[in-house]
């Protein structure tokens, strides 16, 4: 078998972005996931977001771990370098790559198994370091690629395809990320692109670690009655707390926003996100309040979505390291090495 590459045909009737590119130019190889898999919808949302932001595809580094979800970076941005790490270890690859070159966009795609089990430590530590990247967890409550075992995000009482009931409490990536000090935490649903695309855009423009937990049903192993990560269950218990409108730099804020219910937040590149609260009692800039809000709704078994916590002033990896603005890709052999060697050696004579 060899790689299937979609024909790149130019459809003159497709809209182009500021770079003159159509959404097609942001696509990748043909997906090999199951038809109806939530992950494919997220890929589509990513394509739309990157196109909408006029990002040069080759200025993106895309990466993932191992799993069905982790296969998806091959399905978008064919002109971007991509890397499939080992299972659960994409955050370290992202950290090293970002340390070496701060001047690219970083998109990491992971699964609930990849991030919350084998890679839980790396996930947590990438958050701690505030690596400037977009980090998506395509969350289906199971290990898709190894055929449907419960993952660490499976809810108590959720039934597997084989009939087992999960009794262990789930690890919630959203609560985890907020408590670890993540500076951008959102939850979306693969079935709601209208909400997801602006979230992805905002996450890409956020400086720091932007984590989006995207409920992404696995149609092969976790879409049955009794599963809490099925399409039907997600739709039934879906609770958008907040709508996020993403507004490009320099673009005018046109929509009429009701005062008190909206909250504009300026991102580092000058773009703005306007949060429209569906629930007035949620304040996404207050960490303790956000955790309390999420806990209350978790008890009510609701799936709260939207941009749930954001902090624009966090210092990222490079701010903390005081890294030079140029990338570190060039080997640094400048200066008079001979003189340096001489100076160093005087201490050892």
């Amino acid at each position, binding site marked *: *078998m*060899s*790689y299937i590459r979609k024909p790149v045909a130019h459809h003159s009737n497709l809209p182009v972005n500021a770079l003159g590119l159509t959404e097609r130019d942001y696509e990748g190889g043909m997906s090999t996931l199951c038809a109806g898999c939530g992950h494919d919808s997220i890929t589509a949302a990513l394509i739309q977001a990157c196109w909408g932001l006029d990002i*040069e*595809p*080759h*200025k993106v*580094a895309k990466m993932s771990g191992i799993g069905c979800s982790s296969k998806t*970076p*091959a399905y978008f941005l*064919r*002109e*971007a*370098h*991509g*890397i*499939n*790490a*080992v299972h659960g*270890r994409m*955050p*370290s*690859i992202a*950290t*090293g*790559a*970002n*340390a*070496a*070159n701060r*001047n*690219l966009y970083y998109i990491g795609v992971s699964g609930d198994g990849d991030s919350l089990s084998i890679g839980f*430590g*790396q996930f*947590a*530590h990438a958050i701690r*370091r505030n690596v400037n990247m977009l980090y998506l967890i395509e969350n289906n409550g199971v290990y898709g690629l190894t055929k449907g075992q419960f993952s660490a995000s499976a809810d108590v009482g959720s039934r597997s395809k084989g009939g087992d009931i999960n009794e262990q409490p789930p690890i919630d990536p959203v609560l985890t990320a907020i408590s670890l000090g993540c500076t951008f935490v959102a939850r979306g649903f693969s079935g709601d692109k209208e909400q997801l695309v602006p979230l992805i855009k905002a996450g890409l423009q956020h400086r720091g670690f932007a984590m989006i937990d995207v409920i992404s049903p696995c149609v092969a192993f976790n879409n049955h009655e009794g599963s809490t990560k099925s399409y039907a269950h997600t739709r039934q218990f879906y609770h958008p707390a907040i709508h996020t409108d993403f507004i490009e730099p320099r673009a005018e804020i046109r929509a009429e926003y009701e005062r008190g219910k909206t909250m504009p937040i300026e991102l580092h590149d000058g773009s703005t996100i306007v949060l429209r609260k569906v629930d007035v009692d949620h304040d996404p800039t207050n960490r303790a309040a956000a955790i309390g809000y999420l806990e209350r709704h978790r008890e009510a078994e609701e799936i709260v979505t939207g941009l749930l916590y954001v902090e624009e002033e966090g210092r990222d*990896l*490079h701010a903390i*390291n*005081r*890294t*030079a*603005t140029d*990338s*570190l*890709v*060039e*080997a*640094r*052999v400048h*200066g008079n*090495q*001979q003189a*340096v*060697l001489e100076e*160093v*050696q005087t201490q*050892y*004579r």
Partner: protein
Amino acid sequence: MPGRVNDFTLKIATVNGTGSASANALLTKAVFRMGVPVMGKNYFPSNIQGLPTWYEIRVTEPGHLTRSGHVHLMVAMNPETFAKDHAEVTPGGYLLYDSTWPRVRDFNRDDINIIGVPLADMVNHHFADARTRILMKNVAYVGALAALLDLDLAVIEGLLQETFGESKAKLVAANMQAVELGHAYVREHFECPLGLRVEERDLTDGHIIIDGNTTAALGAMFAGATVGAWYPLTPSTSLMNAFSDFCERYRTTEQGEREFAVIQAEDELAAIGMVLGAGWMGARAFTPTSGPGISLMNEFIGFGYYTEIPAVIFDVQRVGPSTGMPTRTQQGDLMACAYAGHGDTRHICLYPADPAEAFELSARAFDLAEHFQTPVFVVSDLDIGMNEWMVPELSWDANYRPDRGKVLDADELDRLAGPFQRYMDPDRDGIPFRTLPGVHPAGAFFTRGSGHSKHGTYTEDAAEYQEVMDRLACKFETARAHVPPPAIEYAYAASGGDGRQRPRPTACAIVSLGSCDLAVREARKALKAGGTELDYCRIRAFPFTDEVERFLAEHETLFVVEQNRDAQCKGMLLMETDVARDKLVSILHYNGLPIASTDIEEAVLGHLNREEAI
């Protein structure tokens, strides 16, 4: 004991965490400054305070900078280990102890000389607080030894001034006071100097005293490394500390911006992941670690091998298996490094013998890693990494340019006809071209540790998979001619028909690697003095080069000297060369102390005598 001028070993037994390390370093450096070659080795516990620790100093005008296997003077400061230390003194030698507390009943040998100095007593009289007293007791034995061994007090004072600087003149004075206390007491009560003594020479000119982690770090900076990731692990920790310090000084812009990033990872899995991420991005990146870290990194190392990402891994080996003895030395990871990762993997490994070579091979490792697009190991050990060695001054080629390997730049990618294909072999050397992220849309490809074809695409096709694996094997063959050749010394040369000198191989020879070197050299000299000449091949790299193969072929018996139990180097030679099994005789040392020349000498003679007996 007959007089031993500039040729003796002293050993200092103390308790760790009492400041004795700096006193011992002071002694070592004083001998060095007096122009006499000196070896200092620290046998310290995996502990912060309160456990026994030893420091061995060999004063060696002939330049045998290795363990002699003797203790001519023992400074027994630790009551807990007193009996053992007392027993270890070479007959005719001396034992210095703190006679504040008489221990007459402990002396059960009449073949050694006892020197009692009331160290605690004298410092307690002169210094007030408890901590100072503990520290100064060590400095006082330096003074006592200075008198006994005829060390120059002006040299000691000069070193103290360098250590504390002008701003801390008081500290210098206090230390000198303690030195003089010990010095005066010994002068008054014993005949000074002893038969053992140091006489000034000029044999250390052009040399430095330095540890191999510092030089390896310096090599990394000189090679232009910009990203380092690590997780603290003895004995590798000081390598990253040194790199950070060097870069802070020499790789920070005037505006205070760092042209480097050192990341303390959450574990070694992440550390190697970060290095591979940075290497994939195109930066020169490395991680220092030791055995336990190598074990953790295995999956990612295999990934780096198969996806062909440059990375440099320093394995400063310590005693395994498992946690083992973290502060003792061994060469126990030879195989773990050479074959790290599951599936068919083989890695370029470099084996420095001392800190000077650690500097050279550290820098070299970055070139090899990028030239061959693969993880490269610098396999050092605790002895090299943490002990201070006297080595010739380091030198650096002013014309050095990093070898970044086959990387297509934006212009080349502009001219590319058709899509970029990552794993082709256009030059038939097994080395493909690579591209870096962010440079050009035409350069994009997908890096994956899963099966891939030469085009870089996912594959489960039998032939496509195998083609890439075969090319990787070919790449390793190319590396064979590029890695550092062994250092070979022949005992005899004969002139050939063309008048040129050619080596005339001895029947028996030694093959070794890494920090065994100096012990092998001293053993060869001793054996030669007894009439046994042995050629010597010190392997400096894996894959083994043709020179190694030839050396193995031209000798009948090869003693393979290494510091592990399972003869890992010998195993690799059997697996990787054509040498016949019955030609190889192992000499193994693996108790955690650096190998001594006597270990080798005795083993060689033992074998030769047995052969004769048959």
